[in-house]
């Protein structure tokens, strides 16, 4: 039978009479855990921000009609040459349309899938911006602006004007910040758009778009789907791209494969398109955890050291406890519980310090041109980190306490008592 009350009482007395050593050991854990929490909150916050920068604007699945040469050339269809070795030089892609055939029914079909948050249309077109004598090449994308706002945080990138301004204006354009700067244009001004075919349309600037990536801002502008269809002289079912956002990103790969097979279209999933971001995230997490674990190992050695010393100091006490009927296991539990108390107190203090520090970092101003929506350093307050932190603290102190306490368990009281 283990009498916890007695054991904990002895452990408590030992710890309190050696308060300085106890505090040193606990502070080791506190700093380890505090640093872990701060690091992991800051690092994952940064990760999330960097990922959001790309992933928010990137559809989970991007469906379009790729121009590529036919896999089956006419010669393959000709029966008499079936078992011969045919060489076809200079294959060119077949004349085909850029638009997605049957785009509206495909969108309807995708929107019915319970895994899909939304499938929305886009029309991408190469154009020239003309203002006065300046001509600039660029891209004009026709969008359903309200759905873009809902699914892809589009509003964050409109630095002047509102999405509704675009929605309500059939001749409106959301001009890229780089374009606007180069051409000295501001909201309310007019810009002329020339299509590849040479048709010129005047559009009113209702807002400025800034993604934070200069290469995009220098060429990209947005207008309503209908506006672009009108500029191109196309019907309402003219759609070149479908962007799909899912509830669960893991579903992107199988769905993309399914779409490719079913509709004979190109479907790129986000994982394939942005593999390098996952690598970056993994490496940053690796750094965070290796630093934290190093700190905790150092703290663990501190605890090991202090408990070892304590056990040498308490040799006589251990002998007398054993002589008066405490078993080796009881003695081990006394020292183990000391280690665990140090771990728990140090760990909880560490969590509080981590909480405080990460809130402090989260309140520091962090303003950058590239990220218009971010004003302070990004911090990710995930309760899981605190769970991991306290578990870390308990496990490392357990390991640090285990060896010294086992030594205490094995001490032979006769040798101590007779050795005096």
């Amino acid at each position, binding site marked *: *039978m283990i*009498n916890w*009350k*007695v054991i904990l*009482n*002895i452990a408590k*007395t*030992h710890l309190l*009479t050696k308060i300085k050593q106890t505090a040193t050991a606990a502070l080791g854990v506190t700093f380890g855990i505090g640093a872990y929490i701060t690091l992991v909150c800051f690092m994952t916050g940064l990760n999330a921000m960097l990922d959001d920068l790309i992933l928010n604007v990137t559809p989970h699945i991007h469906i379009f009609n790729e121009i590529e040469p036919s896999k089956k050339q006419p010669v393959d269809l000709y029966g008499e040459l079936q078992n011969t070795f045919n060489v076809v030089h200079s294959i060119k892609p077949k004349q085909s349309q850029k638009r997605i055939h049957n785009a509206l029914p495909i969108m309807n079909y995708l929107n019915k899938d319970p895994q899909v948050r939304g499938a929305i249309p886009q029309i991408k077109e190469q154009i020239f911006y003309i203002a006065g004598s300046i001509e600039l090449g660029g891209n004009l994308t026709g969008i359903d602006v309200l759905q873009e706002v809902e699914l892809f945080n589009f509003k964050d990138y409109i630095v002047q004007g509102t999405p509704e301004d675009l929605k309500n204006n059939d001749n409106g354009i959301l001009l890229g910040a780089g374009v606007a700067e180069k051409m000295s244009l501001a909201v309310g001004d007019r810009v002329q758009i020339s299509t590849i075919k040479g048709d010129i349309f005047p559009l009113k600037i209702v807002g400025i778009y800034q993604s934070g990536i200069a290469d995009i801002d220098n060429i990209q502008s947005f207008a309503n789907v209908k506006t672009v269809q009108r500029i191109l002289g196309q019907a309402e079912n003219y759609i070149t791209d479908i962007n799909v956002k899912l509830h669960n990103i893991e579903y992107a790969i199988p769905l993309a494969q399914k779409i490719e097979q079913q509709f004979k279209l190109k479907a790129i999933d986000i994982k394939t398109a942005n593999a390098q971001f996952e690598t970056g995230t993994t490496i940053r997490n690796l750094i965070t955890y290796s630093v934290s674990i190093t700190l905790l190992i150092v703290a663990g050695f501190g605890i090991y050291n202090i408990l070892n010393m304590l056990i040498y100091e308490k040799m*006589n*006490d251990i*002998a*007398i*406890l*054993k*002589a*008066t*009927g*405490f*078993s*080796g*296991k*009881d003695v081990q539990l006394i020292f183990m519980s000391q280690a665990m108390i140090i771990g728990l107190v140090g760990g909880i203090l560490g969590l509080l310090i981590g909480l405080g520090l990460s809130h402090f970092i989260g309140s520091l101003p962090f303003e950058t041109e590239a990220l218009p929506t971010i004003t302070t350093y990004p911090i990710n307050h995930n309760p899981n980190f605190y769970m991991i932190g306290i578990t870390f603290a308990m496990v490392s102190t357990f390991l640090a306490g285990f060896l010294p306490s086992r030594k205490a368990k094995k001490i032979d*009281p*006769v040798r101590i*008592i*007779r050795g*005096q």
Partner: protein
Amino acid sequence: METVLEAKNINKYFKKPVLFHVLKDISFKINRGEFSSIMGKSGCGKSTLLYILSTMDTDYEGALYLNNELVTGQARENLSYIRNKHIGFVFQFHYLLSEFSVLENVMLPAKKLGERTVAEIEHHAIEKLRILEIDHLAKKRASRISGGEKQRVAIARALINDPSIIMGDEPTGNLDSYNSDNVFNIFKQLSDEQGLSLLVVTHDIDFANKTDRIIEMGDGRIIG
């Protein structure tokens, strides 16, 4: 007479540094209420014998019975329980837990045993301290009292679980004659008034002569 402790053919060897036969075929009985002492010169094995009898040393040949129950070969956990409940210890050096108060030191074995509530244990402990006339020290730290007082606290601690037998390893060896007499008188009183069995290892001939029975040892054997 009822037997409290019985040793049958106990042999013990020290294996290091060279093989040495310390205890040679030791057999004897202690009856209930008997105040015995083990006498002998240094190195004759009397302390070694006491630690075997105390169940702390398990590395021996032969059989040991406590209250007619075989103790030899029992698991360590059980031996701890037996020490806790049936055996009280008084050592030459006082071995109190210096960070605890006198009262806590006395209460500790009873708390470990856990047969009574803390309030009962405390009452009991103060009772024991009163018998030994040191109840005024109850709240003092164990490190702040004199040597003679410490030894009396150790006796109170040995008594707390009302053991079958009290064992002492030179309990007066480190005390002046005044305190030494005092400790002897306490033992004598406990033996006479409460019928407690005592087994004390000593080389103080005056102390031994006053006990009921002297077991004399020489060269690992009982010689008288």
